């Protein structure tokens, strides 16, 4: 069991994710440089937070063309578990593995604070250890986390149970209070909050542990 952690030029939560998985949960990891294309031996993929290629043009727009992401797309389409955190969520939307887009926060501020969330696990494999409508708290740290999708498609996503994480107190203006979104199959999850920063009691919360632990099996 090995979790691949994609590293773009500008990723800065890659080592946090490694620490959370290996140090806190005992799950082996391997860094996947953005030019790699071989995912042999990888059982789950995490796209970590930070930045990617300077996020020129739009967040995640350049990263979409990284060689490793073609392999990640194939992996996801075959049912492999893929988790996109923060910039990783932005990349997943640009890549088309998740619908919608992430835009500038409503109040223009970079937000770095705890966020109260409600979990709607549905069929999302990453959230299977959480109870329906469970209230949790995870840190957020983003300037462009306002989820945007057209109203009709939002209803479709809600009806399909793909809106799996909602803000209790919407900090950034996301439509539908969307904090995290799953694909229809449930193997791909994108979220703006940082579960890897809530896996160690020293950091003030453990609500992220069950999410990252779901990479196993």
């Amino acid at each position, binding site marked *: 069991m090995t979790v691949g952690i994609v590293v773009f030029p500008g990723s800065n939560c890659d080592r946090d994710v490694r620490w959370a998985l290996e140090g806190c949960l005992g799950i082996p990891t391997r860094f996947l440089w953005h030019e790699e294309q071989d995912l042999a031996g990888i059982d789950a993929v995490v796209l970590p937070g930070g930045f990617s290629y300077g996020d020129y043009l739009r967040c995640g727009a350049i990263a979409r063309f990284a060689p490793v992401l073609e392999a990640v797309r194939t992996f996801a389409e075959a049912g492999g578990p893929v988790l996109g955190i923060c910039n990783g969520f932005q990349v997943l*939307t640009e890549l088309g593995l998740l619908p919608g887009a992430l835009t500038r926060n409503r109040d223009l501020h970079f937000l770095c604070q705890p966020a109260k969330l409600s979990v709607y696990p549905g069929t999302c494999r990453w959230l299977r250890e959480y109870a329906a409508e469970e209230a949790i708290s995870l840190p957020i740290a983003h300037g462009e986390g306002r989820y945007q999708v057209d109203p009709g498609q939002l209803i479709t996503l809600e009806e399909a149970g793909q809106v799996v994480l909602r803000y209790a107190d919407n900090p950034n203006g996301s439509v539908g209070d969307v904090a995290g979104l799953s694909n229809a199959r449930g193997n791909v999850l994108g979220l703006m909050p940082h579960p890897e920063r809530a896996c160690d009691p020293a950091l003030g919360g453990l609500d992220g542990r069950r999410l990252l632990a779901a990479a196993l099996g």
Partner: protein
Amino acid sequence: MPLFQARVLVSLRPSVLDPAGEATRAAAARLGVEGVKRLRIGKAIEVELEAPDRNEAQARLELLGDRLLANPVIEDWSLEFSEQA
């Protein structure tokens, strides 16, 4: 091969909130400029492209606009073609 010059204008779709535009509109009022009812910020991307002919140049620029320069989920784009350089 002929060189074509174009400008791709990318704007947020009307339904998408533009907080940076709103902040700038508020600053316009503070500057004392009255009557600014709407201010939306987009991008202008200048492109020079070599292509065998204008149709081919147009096709490539449209691909660029659709697939890279704009995200159709949140943005509209338009193309201003200059004459051949």
